[in-house]
């Protein structure tokens, strides 16, 4: 038996929604436990006062990366059937910048805003209303911005394909990058703590 279970027909569309709900609740729970239901904690990342967001996200990336790699190497997961979004370079850069600006101004990203909403934060109510309005505006404006949204399509391209490297080499490089990031974040936080001690 191998994964992805849904694509091998182990369960149907309805049950996949139940699974999605369960995974979503789990995702939200761990975001909350990491402190990401707080806009202060999240925005502190952008002012480099608290690097928890960076560390948690990169831990998740490395865990998923190594987990998927080894599971598919062992033949338990069929990696070619795992969905990942196709790349549209320009629109995704533009969208990423917009999301980042919204993140700094609003204090949440879409996922964490739901977490904050679930824990009863008032600002999250307004943030989610804003997200909903944004989705509505995008939907209505889609005919006008269709050209931009579908510009520079690169298909489902992966880093190994893009750079012509072995899959495992890219895995190793990403792990190295993450470890260097953790080390740098730790050094920076110790420096912040020293500075706070001096004041």
């Amino acid at each position, binding site marked *: 038996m191998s994964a992805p279970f849904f694509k091998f027909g182990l369960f149907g569309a309805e049950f996949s929604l139940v699974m999605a709900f369960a995974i979503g609740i789990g995702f939200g729970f761990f975001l909350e436990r990491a402190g990401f239901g707080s806009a202060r904690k999240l925005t502190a990342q952008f002012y480099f006062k608290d690097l928890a967001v960076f560390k948690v996200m990169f831990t998740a990336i490395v865990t998923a990366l190594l987990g998927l790699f080894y599971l598919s*190497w062992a*033949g338990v997961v069929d990696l070619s059937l795992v969905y990942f979004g196709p790349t549209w370079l320009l629109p995704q850069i533009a969208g990423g910048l917009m999301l980042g600006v919204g993140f700094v101004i609003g204090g949440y990203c879409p996922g964490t805003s739901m977490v904050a909403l679930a824990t009863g934060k008032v600002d999250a109510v307004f943030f989610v209303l804003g997200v909903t309005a944004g989705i509505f505006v995008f939907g209505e404006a889609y005919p006008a911005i269709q050209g931009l949204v579908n510009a520079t399509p690169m*298909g489902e391209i992966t880093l190994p394909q893009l750079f012509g490297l072995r899959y495992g080499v890219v895995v*190793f490089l990403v792990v190295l990058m993450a470890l260097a990031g953790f080390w740098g974040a730790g050094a920076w936080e110790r420096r912040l703590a020293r500075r706070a001690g001096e004041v």
Partner: protein
Amino acid sequence: MRYFSQLSLPGKLALFAFALGLVAVFGDPYGGGAVTLHPQELAVLVQKEVDHVSVERLADWIIQKKSDYRLIDLRDAGSYATYHIPGAENVQLTGLTDAALARNEKIVLYSDGGIHSAQAWFLLKAKGYDAAYILRGGLDDWKDQVLYPVLAANATPVETAAFQRKKEVSAFFGGTPRLGSAPGVTAAAAPLPEPALPKVQAPAAPTASAAAPKKKKEGC
């Protein structure tokens, strides 16, 4: 070992991640070519028709300039030269497993009807190409539904409304919509002259010569 036990928990985890990353260099997540076929999994795929792509959907992909798939024309070179769906690459069944296709690419296969594409689908599955799809009805359906859609003379308003969209799609691909003539006669039953196929735009869509590995059509 003593040094290891002195490390903090994050330090130990970091060392663990480093080791896993280092070993990963020698690994291959796609199994290195050895493929285990599970008849039951194949049966489920076939039964649920998840391996099908309808001609309407393919037409939408082409109109939207989607590039996340490879369209493979399995007919002979002569038929391919006469007409092929825009963006299609001509690959014969015998050359299929040598063609420059990646195992995680979405591959849409078509032939005149559906038999060759279905057989090619099994070939690709056996070679570990997991995202292979069959164009439902093949080029026959492409002609009937996309190039030369027919509006029955006794069509309901809903069908007429849907036909407007079909007309636009047909025009995009250089086809001509047809109107069923005799009322009461279904379009399928009425003998229709085989319409001349629109001339394929020159130069023909990028073809993958089996020798040169081909990059994705767009980007990079």
